[in-house]
């Protein structure tokens, strides 16, 4: 299994608090890893470091291929529509306007996105915004997917659908890391990494 994501020796502290201490994370192609831990354990920080949004104090991250990152809080423009977002993020991935809309809607359709072409983001429900958030992360067909509790606000059908997609991503050879508190769904991942809370920054591994 080719390694797609390797984070080694990651250290991060905020003020006096050590959040991550020599954390290692390696994810191979076609592997889905569940990242768990208590609140404040550093899951989101580790994801943001892997995405390149936060610089670690020590350690390094290496990634093969494209990266897709779905943050816990969707970074969307309140007064732009779904199509506006698809065009804007699609352009970043080198897509033309129509291609971006077509690709975005194809992804959204998979997650049962209601038709809201003209509605601005602030008028969408939390779950619908989260679907758009996830679709944006998938726009560029990434080989490494970092998903930080991406299912928040999903209805039951979409939630089940999301976890079913893990199998699809696995078949496609993507390396997927999902931050989750849903222990019942850990059966759907290949491996679980648990970050220990501060001050003991240990983490344990387990295979699914």
């Amino acid at each position, binding site marked *: 299994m080719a390694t797609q994501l390797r984070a080694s020796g990651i250290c991060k502290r905020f003020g006096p608090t050590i959040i991550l201490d020599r954390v290692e994370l390696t994810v191979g192609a076609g592997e889905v890893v569940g990242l768990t831990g208590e609140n404040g354990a550093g899951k989101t920080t580790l994801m943001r470091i892997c995405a390149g949004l936060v610089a670690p104090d020590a350690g*390094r991250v290496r990634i093969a291929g494209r990266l897709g990152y779905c*943050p816990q809080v969707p970074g969307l423009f*309140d*007064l732009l529509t779904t199509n506006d977002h698809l*065009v804007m993020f699609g352009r970043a991935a080198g897509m033309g306007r129509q291609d971006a809309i077509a690709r975005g809607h194809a992804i959204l359709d998979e997650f049962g996105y209601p038709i809201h072409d003209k509605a601005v983001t602030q008028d969408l429900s939390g779950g619908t915004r989260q679907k758009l958030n996830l679709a944006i992360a998938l726009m560029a067909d990434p080989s490494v997917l970092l998903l930080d509790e991406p299912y928040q606000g999903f209805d039951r059908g979409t939630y089940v659908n999301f976890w079913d997609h893990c199998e699809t991503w696995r078949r*496609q050879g993507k390396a997927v890391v999902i931050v989750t508190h849903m222990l019942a769904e850990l059966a759907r991942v290949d491996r*679980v990494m648990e970050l220990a809370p501060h001050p*003991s920054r240990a983490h*344990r591994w387990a*295979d699914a």
Partner: protein
Amino acid sequence: MRAGRIMIMAEMHGRDLLRRHVALCLLFALPFSFYVASSDNGPSAAASGGVALAFAVSGAALFSVLSSRAADQRLVLSGYRPFEMLLGRLLFLGPLALMIAGLFSLTIVELSTPARPWVVTLGIAVVALQSVPFGLAVGAAVPRELEGTLVLIGVVGIQLATRLDTVSSKVLPFYGPRQILEAGLVHDGPLARPLFQTFAYGVAMLIAARLFVSRRVNVSRHEPLLTGPRAAGPGAEAGPAVKPGPVGAGPAVGTGAAPANGTAPARTGPRHFAGRRGRVSG
């Protein structure tokens, strides 16, 4: 491609602002209110109103940066460059500012009958253009809306309140535009030097905005992980599917070398636990 991304940014910021109907009305109403309120001061009301245009335009520029804070870093992660995002905003806000300045100039020239109407028009246009990099720079430098608004009120307010010959007036960004406006009210006064000052100040603020934006939305580009021909770069994900063993067998927390009781051991140094497939991780 780069031009395409800049145009998309300009278009999206335009769409975002044009959907803020109240804000748009205020953009026009604010400088008019200042002008009307200071009309008792005679011709100098034109200068006050002109500089007050800076409140409106720089406010719009400030909030265009601060309101998209959460999205900006993600846009950079997706492939945009900070200066493309900045140029996109500039490309939309510049013409918008000139449009407001045009309408405002028509009113002032009609009502105040300045000695040199075209110079007043030029001064108002220069205020409008200078306000865009000023708002962008402040928006990029401050952490939140409140701080940005206070800086903006402070700078433009001091510029309005102080006499032209004071040191504090001369160091502020709207000194050049204000000189031009004052020159338009009488039959003489320098134009070339204030224009140059404004231009230099504007360029400096754009550079500052560029530096602050780059720092704020900085995204680390990780080293590529070269593990084989199919993992070498974009498009590598199109390779054959890889399926590592059975799926859905359920998590086995505590298997392998991991602690059997499922508790996380206190870390005293690097500790490694082998997973079921023998990988050493952690």
